[in-house]
């Protein structure tokens, strides 16, 4: 991250059936959003293991987004999103111990037809993370 304006890297875990499809729709509708997000596809937001999120921060991610289907009944596997919500809320409290601001971890519900919502979430997340500055682990050479 050279001295020019800080560009955060965000890792996004998107569930295949809703949020990933929403991101695709943003593409198909040519809705432009900042290129800071890197997406990893999982079959269900319930698959996102807290280890993945910690690994991301350990490797220098400035923000992590977990995105799934709308509660209560959109999940293709019935209840994966509930599990994801539970894990993320729990992890936010733990993150403080590692010196990582919980605001770096986001969880959002995005349906397959909400292309512009996905774009808006990414843009806002980039704005917020820019305020927070780079990942503290990186600053203190935590890699």
């Amino acid at each position, binding site marked *: 991250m050279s001295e020019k304006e800080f560009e955060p890297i965000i*890792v996004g875990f998107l569930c295949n059936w809703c949020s990933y499809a929403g991101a695709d729709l943003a593409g198909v509708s040519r809705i432009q959003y900042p290129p800071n997000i890197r997406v990893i596809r999982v079959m269900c937001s319930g698959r996102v293991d807290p280890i993945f999120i910690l690994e991301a921060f350990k490797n220098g991610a400035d923000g992590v987004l977990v995105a799934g289907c709308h509660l209560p009944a959109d999940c293709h596997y019935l209840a994966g999103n509930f599990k994801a919500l539970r894990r993320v809320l729990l992890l936010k409290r733990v993150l403080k111990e590692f010196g990582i601001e919980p605001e770096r971890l986001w969880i959002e519900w995005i349906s397959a037809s909400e292309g512009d919502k996905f774009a808006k979430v990414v843009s806002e997340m980039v704005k917020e993370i820019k305020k927070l500055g780079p990942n503290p682990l990186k600053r203190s050479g935590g890699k």
Partner: protein
Amino acid sequence: MGSKVGAVLVVGGGVAGIQAALDLADSGFRVYLLDESPSIGGTMAQLDKTFPTNDCAMCILAPKLVAAGRHPNIHLITHAEVEGVEGEPGNFRVKIRRRARYVNPEKCTGCGVCARECPVEAIDEYDEGLSKRSAIYVKYVQAVPRTYVIDRERCIGCGTCKELCRAGAITYEDKDDITELSVGAIILAPGFEEFNPVVKSEYGYKRYPNVVTSIEFERILSASGPYGGIVLRPSDGRIPRKIAFIQCVGSRDSQIGNEYCSAACCMYAIKEAIIAKEHVPTKLECTIFYMDIRAYGKDFEKYYKRAMEEYGIRFVRARVASINEDPSTRNLILRYIVDEKPCEEEFDMVVLSIGMRPPKNAKKLADAVGIKLNEYGFCLTNPLSPIETSRPGVFVCGAFAGPKDIPESVAQASGAAAKAMGIVASERGKLVTSKVYPQERDVLGEEPRIGVFICHCGINIGGYVNVPEVTEYAKTLPNVVYAEHNLYTCSEDTQKRIKEKIIEYKLNRVVVASCTPRTHEPLFRETVREAGLNEYLFEMANIRDQCSWVHMHEPKAATEKAKDLIRSAVAKARMLRPLKKPMVNVIPVALVIGGGVSGMTAAVELARQGFEVHLVEREKELGGNLRRIYYLLEGEDPQEYLKNLINEVNKCSNIHVYLGAEVVEVSGFVGNFKSKILHGGEIKEIEHGVIIVATGATEYKPKEYLYGVDPRIITQRELEEMVYKGLFNAKTVAMIQCVGARNEENPNCSRICCSEAIKNALKIKEISPETEVYILYKDIRSYGFKEKYYHEALKKGVVFINYEDSRKPLVVKDGDRLRLVFWEPVLKQEIEIYPDLVVLSAAVVPNPDNRKVAEMLKVPLTKDGFFLEAHMKLRPVDFQTDGIFLCGLAHGPKSIDESISQACAAASRAATILSKSVLELEGIVASVDEDLCGGCRICEAVCPFGAIEMVEKEGKISAHVIEALCKGCGTCGSACPTKAIKPQHFTTEQILSQVKAILAG
């Protein structure tokens, strides 16, 4: 009678046509799916959300579109129409006119460059004229086939698109061509046409911009619609404060010859009101002007209640006389009458809930296929054989048979598939292509040798991402032995190239960087498998929809991001393992629980296709509820139908009937069930592949209105028996609707009580015309063609009186007379009458033993105790668990013809499994590493599909995955404390390696 043809023609590619085509194709028949428009999807593709679940219509329809588009047995014939049909059932010759498309489907990759630069614009019918499209267009983004078509009226032939098309797909010299298909059966599913309300000039449609039709409002609500999903007024683009919904526009309107009710308008009006409130950041008031709210379907009443209570939608029972526009504000002043008081109210916007008309060229299609239409122009059917048309071998389903909602259309579609299978069952598997794949190479021991194929997608990727630079970069990644880029990776010739490169460079992993895996992963997996490589050794990087298309103005950043995404895909590819697709053999036998009309119909349909059926009936004789139904609203004789059905069941050798029997235990999974039947005291063990639940339902034993206290207070069922037995001689009869329904205890509507009450009232007027008949109702829900009989009852002097929950009627025993007190809303006073008979329209309630059956089969129930199907809209007769199906009253209250349709549907759905000797299941399932598993059962609790069971081996308890039931969601993988259970293809190591690689930029 000539040899039969193992193929079926489905006319109409809407949700019904697609469902019928998928069932037939999955059961081993070739299907020609013909659609008049350039791509399939029908009206449902235009909807934003669907009631009652508020699912996004496209999200649930798209997977079906892709499945139909890619199915080897389904041949799509789009932009075409039927010219003529000759021949007899089993061997039809159909003349098809395929209209010129001017684009070569093989070559067009749907990249859309031509449409973006076409100088000529045209009205976008998909958006109902609210937006414009180019002269060369595809109906909507997710269209299948995603092949563009030229609108010959608007196109001036300037030649720009041919120049731009890198795939060379534009063929201006294209001409209509007539072909002939030989098929065994024909299913008509051309859907319906929306009523054009211009005829009702009092509503001012097309004169006042803010008066829109419901289908236009769907487009306004939709995120892909003209206004991006925010509700705006067409007059000034402002968000409306007050919207009025006017029901029954073009329906229940004898003035223009549409007496019938269009069945779905009440519900979609409520849904549109709810969604409108969600899609608007400001306060929005929605008012629905209605005559009767016909929320008769499953969970509809609850949806209606939530609309009133939770969303505050105002319902006004009044007909809107006229609409005038205030020119200055373009607001609309509605004039209507409530309790005889004329009112005027101003609204920002008015949505006309337009009814369904027969499809545009119904007459032409009918003549071409040789079938009769009914008085309204829909397809003529018989209530007891709702799927057959007037011509044998030609079946009908969906709205063309009569206005209906999506679940009924889908059910009828599967039913029609079953009927068609019945005719061509002998030809099953004859005309289908079963692929033979080369011997799979064992790559387990080998060093990863990864091939990376990067796509230009014309200029969609190449225009913004520096593809050559990214290709060079890919070559530097560890284990990558080959990398190349090409114009269209998904094109036929590139698929051949990939196969050659796999063999030439002995690749054991393939990564394709192009568009979204959701649409193209199956295509590339197929190619990898054809090259002799296990199809799971393949990974995709989405550098189009999630990179080039969304970072058009930052080519440098997009190129860097593409590199990161490819590095991440390569990292995962390195860790990929070959996965076996679990094979399950299928016992071609079905178990049908319940011997009512549904159970018997399902059994007969399956038997007709040659499958063995075990039919278990609790009672001593077959027939269930139908035994006590003596006449129908439409006049046919149900008892005569029942008699024929029963002896057909008994006559049929494939069907083993167990009377007075009960299924006590069921184990195993799809294709391999083992059940124990308690029959005449001893247990009989049977093995079978599928289960159909047709346990029916019972009439509610009313506790209200002094039922049981006085013999003159009877239920509609008892009244029907009394009339049938000729014991009826009452002077005045009073019927009370919604007894035991639409209340806290049973919030749902029982759907059929209104039509039963009208049936009995008409019967009474028939046999003793001078008898006075009063019907006290909340909403008369004689939906669809039943509306005609409601008019007849009114004409015959039956008195309908509306009562509110707040002022329910009162039945009092007054000496030896019965006194009925009720509030007359028009006269606004209490009225007393002394009826000789009080008939209670008792609700349909679930069988008490549903719970026991549910637990036995491990299938869910709804809150009210009926069985819960897999998906209310698109999988009404399937259970979430594979192999178990549902039909009839067990699913919920419904009329006899709807039960029959569902029964056929269940048979067809079952046939998709029974028709296969071996079932290939999805390979992405979880697997347990026994020595790591501590037996803590967390995974078992977490799995929503009951696919994990605990097994004991040498005294150690550990989890075991039932591969047939595992859907591969992976939730168990992240819950397991010791990471013993690994969701294959998405293992923890693979995803961690992706995270590391993606951040190593």
